[in-house]
């Protein structure tokens, strides 16, 4: 720490960004790596999005029109995997890289070389994952949840590559998480106590612990699959004394905390933006921290609510139902806090605020359907229908994705030194908002009416709502090119951004000039 702090002016000319491509390959700078994570995430977002477009095109009307069922299954699988592991998770790591050091007054991440490595594993893992689509027999076609034995005894040969890609993605995530924990626990500026940290830092700290706890579990699950496929073991094969349900228990022990990994940082982002544009402090900082911690704890004891129909015993079923219902309490606390923060504030509605408000409303709707799903007897009707698809898209699209958009618009002036084009950004918001609701709201209806998920063709009574969902989906998809345009335009130029472009914003990052210099806080700031 001291070595870093007392050599500021020497470093300026030696440690500026290198020229050319090697700057990006060799960089250990948290801002460079953060940018790479964000660009990678956006590329994956478009890739996974293109697959969603194929899915929605096939489901535009009944009958098989565009793709065969075998390929359709590959699309649903890859869409899920790419969005989860390629788009949402790296985007949050990118934001963490950019913002955490600036928020806690640190000069960089604690482990900069590992930071470089954990990013550069990603593109290779992603390329390997996507390349399976071009292999003989096609890519993974067993859903992003890859239940055995469909993903072992009955899987295409490319599954081995899928397993390796998952291993690499997992290693990258674990390294990213270790780095974030090490940074937050060790590099806070003097005076930045834990309970003074911005909520984005808090939520990421908790997320990072979740990652370290569950990514090895996922690695274990895919390794057991690998053994079953190639080495004659029978972990998940009942014929050999194994247990297909064991796979689901292991997967969801990873999978449920995983869904909170994708939402907790969003809580942090929204908790920064709402007070900024309401010009009023967050209503209950302490209770927000405790709520996030409780949600994280509960996420470990609710996994079997994904498995209400597999035939777990009554007592188990009741336990998981009660535990799941409990999650509504801390989640409610968060929503009430956000609303109370807005209440009696002095609000303006710039794009980050719009996305954050949409987050609160739509995420809450996703929470409501989650509460409905937690009622085990009702879940017998909801399970594996489009109602579930509607639920998790409501928590992931306006939850994770809208929060990422909000964060991007909020901090873009700090990153680029320019203001983004507000009119275009608002267009982006409204198009996304309408498109998203048009896509996913009707899915509640077709799910309740009885349409199972993951089917390439459907009975006639589902036709009308499916067509609407597809139209909404295309609208949402096309709109994202506008986002790309807005970001590029903002990088290239635009109105000069002040150090603190949002008058209600709070935090150390706004004490730095815009754009943020390549090296920041080489001398720790004073935190009051």
């Amino acid at each position: 720490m001291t070595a870093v702090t007392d050599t500021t002016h020497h470093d300026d000319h030696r440690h500026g960004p290198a020229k050319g491509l090697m700057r990006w390959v060799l960089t250990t700078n948290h801002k460079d790596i953060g940018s790479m994570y964000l660009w990678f995430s956006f590329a994956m977002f478009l890739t996974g999005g293109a697959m969603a477009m194929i899915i929605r095109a096939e489901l535009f009307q009944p009958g098989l029109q565009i793709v065969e069922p075998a390929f359709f299954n590959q699309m649903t699988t890859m869409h899920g995997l790419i969005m989860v592991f390629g788009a949402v998770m790296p985007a949050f790591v990118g934001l963490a890289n950019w913002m955490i050091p600036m928020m806690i007054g640190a000069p960089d991440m604690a482990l900069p070389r590992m930071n470089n490595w954990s990013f550069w594993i990603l593109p290779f893992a992603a390329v390997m994952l996507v390349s399976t689509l071009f292999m003989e027999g096609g890519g993974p076609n067993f859903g992003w949840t890859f239940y055995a034995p469909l993903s072992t005894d009955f899987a295409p040969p490319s599954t081995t590559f899928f397993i390796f890609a998952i291993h690499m993605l997992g290693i990258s995530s674990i390294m990213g998480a270790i780095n974030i924990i090490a940074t937050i626990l060790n590099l806070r500026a003097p005076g930045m106590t834990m309970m003074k940290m911005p909520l984005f830092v808090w939520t990421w700290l908790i997320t990072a612990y979740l990652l370290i706890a569950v990514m090895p579990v996922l690695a274990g699950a895919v390794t057991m699959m690998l053994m079953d496929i190639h080495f004659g073991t029978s972990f998940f094969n009942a014929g050999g004394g194994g247990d297909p349900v064991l796979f689901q228990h292991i997967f969801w022990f990873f999978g449920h905390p995983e869904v909170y990994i994708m939402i907790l940082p969003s809580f942090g982002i929204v908790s920064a933006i709402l007070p900024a544009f309401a010009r009023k402090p967050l209503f209950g900082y302490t209770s927000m921290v405790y709520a996030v911690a409780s949600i994280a704890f509960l996420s470990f004891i609710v996994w079997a609510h994904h498995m209400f129909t597999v035939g777990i015993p009554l007592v188990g079923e009741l336990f998981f139902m009660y535990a799941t219902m409990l999650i509504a309490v801390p989640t409610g606390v968060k929503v009430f806090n956000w609303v109370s923060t807005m209440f009696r504030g002095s609000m303006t509605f710039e794009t980050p605020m719009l996305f954050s408000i949409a987050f609160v409303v739509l995420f809450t709707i996703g929470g409501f359907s989650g509460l409905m799903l937690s009622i085990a007897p009702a879940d017998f009707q909801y399970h594996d229908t489009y109602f579930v698809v509607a639920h998790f898209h409501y928590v992931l699209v306006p939850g994770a994705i809208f929060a990422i958009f909000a964060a991007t618009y909020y901090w873009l002036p700090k990153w680029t030194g320019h203001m983004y084009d507000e009119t275009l950004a608002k267009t982006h918001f409204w198009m996304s908002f309408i498109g998203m609701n048009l896509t996913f709201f009707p899915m509640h209806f077709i799910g309740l009416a009885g349409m199972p998920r993951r089917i390439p063709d459907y009975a006639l009574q589902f036709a009308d709502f499916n067509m609407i969902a597809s139209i909404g989906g295309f609208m949402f998809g096309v709109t994202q090119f506008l986002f790309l345009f807005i970001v590029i335009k903002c990088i290239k130029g635009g109105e000069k951004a002040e150090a603190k472009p949002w008058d209600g914003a709070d935090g150390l990052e706004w004490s730095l000039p815009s754009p943020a210099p390549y090296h920041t806080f080489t001398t720790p700031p004073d935190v009051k």
Partner: protein
Amino acid sequence: MMLLHTPALFHSIAERASNMKSASKLKTLFFLRLGWLVGLTGTFVSGSALADWTVNMTEGVTAVSRSVYSLHMIIFLICVVIGVLVFGVMFYSILVHRKSKGAVPQQFHESTLVEVLWTTVPFLILVGMAIPATKTLIDIYNTDESEVDIKITGYQWKWQYEYVGEGVSFFSSLNTPREQIQNSRIKNPNYLLEVDEPLVLPVGKKVRFLVTAADVIHSWWVPAFAVKRDAIPGFINEAWTKIERPGIYRGQCAELCGKDHGFMPIVVDVRSEEDYAKWLVERKEAAAKERMILEEDWPMDRLMTTGKKVYEKTCAVCHQVNGQGMPPIFPALKGADLVVDKARVGDHVDILMNGIKGTAMQSFANQLNEAEIAAVITYERNAWGNNTGEMVTPKEILNYRKNGKYTPDPDNKTVTPFVNTKQAGL
């Protein structure tokens, strides 16, 4: 698209209307509440009746399905009330507390009383919700004292129904014609929700389902009964129902189970007790007749005709009607070494009887009878220009079952190369 479907939709409306005579007031309320979406999107598709836009869960025809439905409606209404309150405060703030209206930000934060309240009140609501949910769940798990036991086995991509203790067992698979799926013909009203042989059940009796699978995990779901149970290889799950009204009830597989997951529907034909008893007697007689067929004479052309039927119903889904398969997952049979090499008849029989472990090729020993297995092997060895002229007889398969290995029957004289271009589809 709408032109194509309009007649079909009217049929499905009629059927649904007859299935749900007692659509409750709550349901109407739900319709109204969500009517905005109908209004919003009605412009896209003109001329379709309101009933097309099914927006809610079915109440179903069993006591369990009704209590599930009411749980669903209660929790939904709780969510609506909370939503109206929370969003009400929020939109009020958005409208009133804006800078453009000169709102001055207050600086209040933290209030122990408020925070304790908004933690405990939701908790109490949840407790109130958990009580009826627990009751229903206990009811769902009570599979005692069943009067009829049905063993359900999921296969890729069909269902097998076994009437335990009655000696009746059959497969039930999709019978929507391929042309309708490929959009070259107008779709039936029950497009993708129709099967060749429905499960027949008696009304008013407690029926227990023993659910399992032969290959991957499936899930047997009929919304009108609120029964959804995963069919897991190596496990037997229990579920039960007691249906109150005769009628046809439809459902689908609810767990991704491979390529044709979307094409393995469930149809349950619920009949009065007398009709059910009559049907069961007929089924038993038919089963006896089937056993007789084995003793009959099976000349080449009969094997080929039956074989073609069996092939197209059972094998073509993977190996394709033209025998070319979808390599590498589903290998071609046309010209394949296994199928044309005279020395490998035994292997061919082995694979059909036992499947190939670790692949999608399953065992058909319990899915097809001896005559059907013999016929389909004969067909595969002679169709699509394979023309081996070889014949496998039901008797040989019967012997295979007894001895566990294939031995050619000395009475089975292989005929001269057989080319029936019409049957072989050339």
